[in-house]
């Protein structure tokens, strides 16, 4: 059962008015322009026990991602491929609005939106994750934890997941006499695509990207657009109640294309990767 949580109070309306007035002048509360993103920081490898890990921040929002590889059976309809699973938890230490307990609908939505970008862009070569056709394959567990929440956990989550994947060192296994054993060697995942997302917030006929917390609570509606390096749209999620005027969409797609490029560049600089 999904329960509505929209409660736009009077205060929120005053904040909205303020943000809207700024937007009309091309400005925002924290000095950014409507299409500016907050600073991106990426630290990888801080969890040595994970096979890949990254802590990414976008402004005050911090995301920790860890990856663990296990050996399991391939899906029966994809015998030549390994698989991956994305989970996300909105940790209660990240925000007064997050509760301890199993992921609520927001956590589930975050996991599924991140999963969609990774899956549809085919950035992981799943065929390389097969060990023995139809019998043994790698399963990657990608676990996303929101550590500090200052608005927009979508974009930095995708960044952290890609950083963890890009720097992961997966233990190699081999099958000897039917037994699966570690060889002691490692391999890299060699990502085939770098899909990023851009989160948009709309107030009246104006939009902005990467809303911080105060903005987020004042939005009329928000939407996430994911794009790969070939300018394909690979994921969209309208993730709040509200009307999106149909004629705004194309413009947002254009901005998403530009912002995802920007994020990709920052990502590659931080990880010292060529695009």
């Amino acid at each position, binding site marked *: 059962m999904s329960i*509505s949580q929209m*409660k736009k109070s009077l205060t929120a309306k005053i904040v909205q008015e303020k943000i809207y007035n700024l937007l009309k002048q091309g400005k925002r509360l924290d000095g950014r322009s409507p299409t500016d993103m907050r600073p991106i920081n990426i630290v990888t490898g801080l969890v040595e026990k994970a096979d890949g890990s990254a802590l990414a921040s976008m402004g005050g929002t911090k995301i920790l991602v860890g990856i663990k590889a296990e050996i399991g059976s391939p899906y029966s309809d994809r015998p030549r491929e390994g698989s991956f699973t994305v989970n996300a938890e909105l940790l209660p230490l990240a925000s007064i609005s997050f509760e301890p307990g199993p992921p609520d609908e927001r956590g589930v939505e975050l996991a599924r939106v991140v999963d969609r970008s990774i899956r549809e862009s085919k950035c992981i070569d799943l065929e390389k994750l097969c060990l023995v056709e139809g019998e043994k394959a790698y399963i990657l567990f990608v676990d996303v934890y929101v550590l500090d929440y200052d608005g927009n956990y979508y974009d930095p989550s995708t960044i952290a997941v890609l950083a963890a994947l890009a720097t992961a060192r997966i233990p190699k296994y081999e099958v000897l006499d039917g037994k699966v054993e570690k060889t002691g060697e490692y391999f890299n995942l060699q990502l085939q695509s770098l899909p990023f997302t851009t989160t948009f917030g709309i107030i009246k006929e104006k939009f902005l990207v990467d809303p911080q917390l105060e903005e987020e609570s004042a939005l009329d509606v928000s939407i996430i657009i994911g794009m790969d390096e070939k*300018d*394909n749209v690979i994921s969209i999620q309208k993730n709040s109640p509200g009307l999106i*005027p*149909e004629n705004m969409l194309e413009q947002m797609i254009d901005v998403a294309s530009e912002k995802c490029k920007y994020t990709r560049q920052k990502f590659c600089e931080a990880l010292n990767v060529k695009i």
Partner: protein
Amino acid sequence: MVKDEKLKLINEEGTRIDGRRPDELRPLKIEIGVLDKSDGSAYVELGKTKVFAAVFGPREVHPKHLALPDRAILNCRYHMASFSVDERKPLGMTRREIELSKVIREALESVVFLEEFPRTSIDVYIEVIQADGGTRTAGLTAASLALAEAGIPMADLVAAVAVGKIEGHLVLDLCDLEDKYGEADMPVAMAPRLNSIVLLQLNGRLAKEDFRRALEFAKKGITEIYQKQREALRKKYSGVSLMEV
């Protein structure tokens, strides 16, 4: 899913596996008021996709401290019967059902005048009894009619359909096979009179240039569905019902 190499989803003339043209909807059947014990209900069949929706409310919230002083709470549960899909779905809500319940609820919140019913809840239940692609959009189409029958005031009806890409062609209203083996699936819901999107998701790869055209396809389908919704409501209120169980 690995697609069988011989499987052709669409041929050179643009004819799809079930004989449809790219911009053609599957046969659509709409019934209103099919479940007596709810305040409003509807049944929608789109090809083999079959969905019930029912609405209860506005009613008192239990426990009371969950009520909102200035508006109604809208609850929504999208649920699939275990036998509605090829592989039996285990009991309990899957993560997919949880996500879809959320986006469907948000789509409905976009049009319902919640502030007219403070301290109450409006509960929307969607039951998919057979899933052949497009269940969230069919569910939304049905839920919006159930709300109308329950007399809940809305800025507009919501009409919804998926659009997608298969073997390089844009197509309207994907069936399950097209969804599985196609390149992209984009469910769209609109409040047509308001020219506004209330639900939008995308799964797959759609070149930036294709996006506009995909949206046009969706709008065409939505216009047809909207038409049929209004017809069904008219028929309902002129006292004719079709469903017989």
